[in-house]
């Protein structure tokens, strides 16, 4: 009995190994993805945002603003265009992202404690740049605003201490938890690499049933009388084992070499990934049992695997998706996985919170395997020739 199981598993391993394309994708796909993304996000945050300043005032006050901007952590002053038209051209050509326009009479208005307006233009065509630029500019303008406010109060006869206290009576202290430096690499690199892994796994699982039934050697298996359940369990065991072996080097590099956050520790992340691998395999098995041939099965798999990461709410919050779509997103195992992995790596909220993620992925696996069994049992493949 064990000889049969061993032989089926050995053959499945040799099949996966000898298929060079499949082997390379499974072995190197997600690993290369991780290295590539780690390289792309190696700088970890957006700083040195190219900035241009149009100083129409050329006063001491405007020089002070320029100095403050120069000292900003994330902005890099690269040019001083003469007017707004030149600034517009620079932004259109992509040479600068942020433009600051200090109006004429700025120094005079500040000195007279009149309201004045400094123009800030941000190139919104690149969302990542725009968000970071906006936050960097806000930090500088807040401090300039406070400085001028205090000096205005002093000019109105208020004691310097009182003026400062008046402005700083409420202190808003930013304290970013779980990813204190808002590091892009921590947030995105692992998720992108794991996304490649889950896509490879889904596509490989899509060959589970049709990979046997769709080829003529299925006749040898069928005529040998070997139990379909035994065949399925042995093949699945190999597939899920291979999926886990594929993710191990990715996790090792991510958590041990690149030192990405792993709040939950190794056992929890591996157990969660294992649960997801089973669920993913069950999803692929549904595709492969419903499809008429291997090509269709792969197409079905791609339809699920490719958009699932976007739908998962990892990069764009689920809460910001249309109301009607949100429940639909939770039907994808990938949504539970990517949400869960974010909680586990950054926060580790504990079993009381995480158990539902394990439970739902487990229940989905049972459901998908049952549907696959119904399809496989119900759809009879006739080899009618004469």
């Amino acid at each position: 009995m064990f000889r049969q199981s061993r032989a089926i598993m050995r053959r499945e391993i040799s099949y996966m190994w000898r298929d060079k394309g499949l082997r390379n994708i499974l072995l190197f796909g997600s690993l290369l993805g991780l290295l590539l993304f780690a390289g792309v996000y190696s700088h970890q945050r957006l700083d040195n945002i190219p900035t241009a300043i149009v100083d129409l005032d050329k006063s001491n006050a405007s020089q002070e603003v320029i100095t403050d901007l120069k000292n900003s952590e994330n902005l890099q002053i690269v040019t001083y265009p003469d007017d707004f038209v030149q600034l517009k051209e620079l932004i259109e050509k992509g040479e600068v992202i942020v433009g600051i326009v200090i109006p004429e009479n700025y120094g005079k208005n500040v000195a007279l404690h009149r309201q004045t307006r400094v123009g800030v233009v941000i190139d919104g065509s690149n969302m990542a740049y725009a968000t970071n630029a906006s936050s960097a500019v806000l930090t500088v303008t807040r401090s300039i605003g406070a400085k001028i406010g205090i000096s205005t109060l002093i000019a109105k006869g208020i004691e310097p201490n009182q003026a400062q206290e008046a402005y700083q009576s409420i202190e808003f202290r930013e304290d970013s938890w779980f990813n204190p430096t808002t590091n892009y690499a921590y947030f995105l690199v692992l998720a992108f690499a794991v996304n490649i892994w889950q896509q490879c796994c889904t596509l490989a699982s899509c060959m589970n049933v049709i990979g046997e039934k769709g080829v003529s050697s299925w006749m040898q298996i069928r005529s040998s009388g070997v139990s379909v359940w035994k065949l399925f369990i042995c093949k699945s065991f190999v597939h899920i084992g291979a999926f886990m072996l594929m993710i191990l080097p990715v996790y090792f590099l991510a958590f041990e070499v690149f030192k990405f956050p792993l709040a939950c520790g190794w056992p929890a992340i591996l157990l969660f990934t294992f649960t997801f691998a089973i669920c993913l395999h069950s999803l692929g098995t549904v595709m492969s049992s419903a499809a008429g041939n291997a090509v269709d099965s792969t197409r079905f798999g791609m339809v699920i695997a490719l958009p699932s990461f976007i739908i998962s709410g990892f990069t764009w919050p689920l809460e910001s998706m249309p109301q009607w779509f949100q429940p639909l997103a939770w039907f994808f195992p990938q949504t539970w996985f990517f949400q869960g992995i974010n909680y586990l790596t950054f926060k580790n909220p504990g079993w009381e919170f995480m158990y539902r993620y394990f439970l739902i992925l487990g229940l989905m696996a049972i459901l998908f395997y049952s549907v696959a069994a119904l399809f496989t049992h119900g759809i009879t493949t006739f080899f009618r020739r004469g």
Partner: protein
Amino acid sequence: MESIIKVSKLSQKMGRRILLNEISFEVFPGECFGVFGTRGTGKTSLLHILAGLDRFTSGEVQIMGNNIRKSDKFKRDLGLVTQEKSLFRDLTVNENLDFIAALKQASRADISEMIESYELNEFLSEPITALDTMGVFQRLSLACAMLNRPKILILDEIIKDIDLYSRNLILRELQKYQAEGGTCVCAFSNIDFCKYMSRIGWLEGGEVTLYEAEDARAEWSRQEKLYKEQSGNYHV
């Protein structure tokens, strides 16, 4: 004598086309039962039903007393060589023997015996896709089918278009198998192969007509002569 295969009112439809129309026949132990017919007459469909590969529309098939709709037990005593190449394309000759032996729960000794009998030694390490002659492939297919020492062998066009050496070797082994009491059901489309059969089931238009081997040959000659005359001596 009790039959080893009993087919009763077997029908098989493919879409609207009736491939087999309530056919009935029996095969007895030790017999080599030939299923003869031209292309598209349902020989392969019939053999696949007997091997438990395909479901069928209606009727009953009993193999060694098992209703094949209800039980798979008969497969333990079954060997199958399909018309389409059905060995594992990703494996070598030796690996195919090894894997199919494991599926059929045959022993290592059985594998060695088959390698010897079917003269496969020099091909063992070759991938089956690299086998250059159909004859060697059919020898390997039959060796795989024989691994579990089956009581019934189902063979679909096994000696069609193969080299004479392999053909003689296969016929020799089949003779030996029959001499030891084995039963064959063998589909073929070349009337010359009648001589190797005990009886013939001639499939045509969804019906089966049973003949002794010589009678089948005579019927073929009669039809050949008839159509030759009808077509004004133009040989078909």
